[in-house]
């Protein structure tokens, strides 16, 4: 027993040091009084859900910061990016960040998790989903009907509802397609390890085309699936306790997006400040594609960031049907909160 005494003492010491270092956390979690306007801007942290690039929600934040929209709305925003995808969720849960981005399906998935992660969408930027399935143009695959007997890759742990919806819509039996888990390297498609490769619409198709491999892309939305794209997100708790801050944040980032829409080159300049060394043309492609998708559908009439219970319910039911979320949610309306500024 004596031998272990030093180790135990070291352990105790380590724990004491750990707990003493936590005081900053306490301060960050104190909700600022929402009704009292203060002269000092509110300090918040926004963490983008991927590395720095021209995804529209990221662009909104970048531009809002650089062009002073945050400052106008009395916000002092620190912009971070995840080190590895998924880091933003524990950070939201722990309260170390206040705002982030999330794909709409993933948001529902997290809400239905075990235990559930209570995050909400405060603005829906992508009015349609970004997921697509790419095949090489010269592969001879003209439609998903031709997927029979081919190999399809999926990222993540299992195939997505979008994949299943495409199969279903085209009458393709699931066991007639070989499904394999793939990584992010597009060489898997170009080297022929898979025939069908999952892509982000604003991303890989452009990259592959620039590499000399033009592709044909199929989406679930082509076959009527009610997919939705990226959102700005925060926790239920934070939204309940700081509605004013959230409102100002949403206003600022939407201002950022509007500015980017009018000033695309300048917006890309700003993006490149955050995404050092990124390819300008590819980033521009990403921005253009996502702006189009953001102004599409419901947003055409209601403005960027619009979200409705109909959209969310449709997405939810679609997800449940194709096993995209582990269990149905009791109340889908809790998944989003409307902070869209009233149109002037």
């Amino acid at each position, binding site marked *: 027993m004596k031998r272990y005494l030093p180790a135990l003492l070291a*352990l105790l010491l380590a724990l004491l040091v*750990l707990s003493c270092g936590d005081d900053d956390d306490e301060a960050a979690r104190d909700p600022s009084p929402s009704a009292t306007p203060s002269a000092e801007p509110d300090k918040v942290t926004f963490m983008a859900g991927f590395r720095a690039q021209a995804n529209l929600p990221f662009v909104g934040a970048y531009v809002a910061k650089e062009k002073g929209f945050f400052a106008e709305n009395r916000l002092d925003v620190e912009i971070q990016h995840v080190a590895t995808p998924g880091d933003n*969720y524990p950070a939201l*849960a722990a309260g170390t960040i206040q705002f982030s981005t999330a794909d709409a399906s993933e948001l529902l998935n997290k809400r239905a998790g075990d235990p559930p*992660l209570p995050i909400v969408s405060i603005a829906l930027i992508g009015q349609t989903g970004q997921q697509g399935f790419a095949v090489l143009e010269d592969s001879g695959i003209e439609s998903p009907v031709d997927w029979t007997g081919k190999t399809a890759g999926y990222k993540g*742990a299992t195939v997505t509802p979008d994949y299943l919806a495409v199969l279903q819509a085209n009458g393709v039996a699931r066991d007639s397609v070989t499904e394999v888990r793939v990584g992010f*390297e597009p060489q898997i498609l170009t*080297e022929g390890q898979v025939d069908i490769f999952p892509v982000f619409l604003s991303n890989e198709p452009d990259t592959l085309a620039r590499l000399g491999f033009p592709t044909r892309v199929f989406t679930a939305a082509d076959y009527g699936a009610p997919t939705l794209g990226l959102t700005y997100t925060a926790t239920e708790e934070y939204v309940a306790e700081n509605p004013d801050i959230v409102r100002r944040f949403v206003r600022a980032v939407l201002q950022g997006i509007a500015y980017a829409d009018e000033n695309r080159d300048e917006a890309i300049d700003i993006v490149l400040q955050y995404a050092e060394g990124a390819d300008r043309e590819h980033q521009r492609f990403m921005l253009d594609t996502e702006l189009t998708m953001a102004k599409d559908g419901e947003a055409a009439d209601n403005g960027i960031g619009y979200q409705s219970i109909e959209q969310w319910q449709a997405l939810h039911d679609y997800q449940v049907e194709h096993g995209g979320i582990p269990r149905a949610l009791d109340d889908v309306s809790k998944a989003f909160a409307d902070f869209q500024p009233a149109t002037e």
Partner: protein
Amino acid sequence: MMRSVLRVIAGCVVPPLLAFALLIAFWESYIAWRDVSIFVMPAPSDIAERFADDPGFFVEEGWWTLYEATLGLLIGSIVALLAAVAMSYSRPLERAIFPIAVAIKVTPLVAISPVLVIVFGFGVMPKLIIATLLCFFPMLVNATIGFRDVNPAQLEFFRSINASPWQVFWKLRAPGSLPYIMSALKITYPLALTGAVVAEWFSGTRGLGYVIYAAWLNLRTAELFAAIAVLAVTGVFIYAVLSLLEQRLLFWHESVRSVR
């Protein structure tokens, strides 16, 4: 014999178990005290609960990883042993093989994992290759030293009875190198396990690596830690088995005899 085995086990197992229990107690109470979100860090009770929910699942996936690791270990070790034999008898061969071995050792295998998937597909092959590559170098080095490090007096005896080089190898170098080979196994088996897990992370749908990946993606932190715990237990178990094997096979070696 049974009593002494029990005593050895008690002596080896009780102290770490005690330390472990204390650590668990601290961990559990810290999470409760600071109200740490489960998405940041699960408590031991959460992990135990998740494991108890479906122990068969973890065990089965653990077996799969162990299978890949063991296969990779066998292949890597055999290739390394053959290379070591060749190298101990031919200096030019040694000069040819050794730089390649070092290059393999230095390559971050995590980085080439995706490349292996691109080239070899999604099945067991990339995991096997990773595990094999990880095991190759340590075994090669140890076996080479082992084959070379013969007792000079013993070697002189073999010369004095005019033994052929093959006889010298088979009756002197090979048995004499066993301590080094066992020692290499104790290093490489855990490496092979880690390698298999890393490879499973990148492709395929079996094994603890995949379980950890899927759990991580879906924020099932308790499941993630449970898988890690199973992996750790597997590693400890392997090490214990190897140590016991070492005791039995190397009873004649001073290093083993002087251990309690």
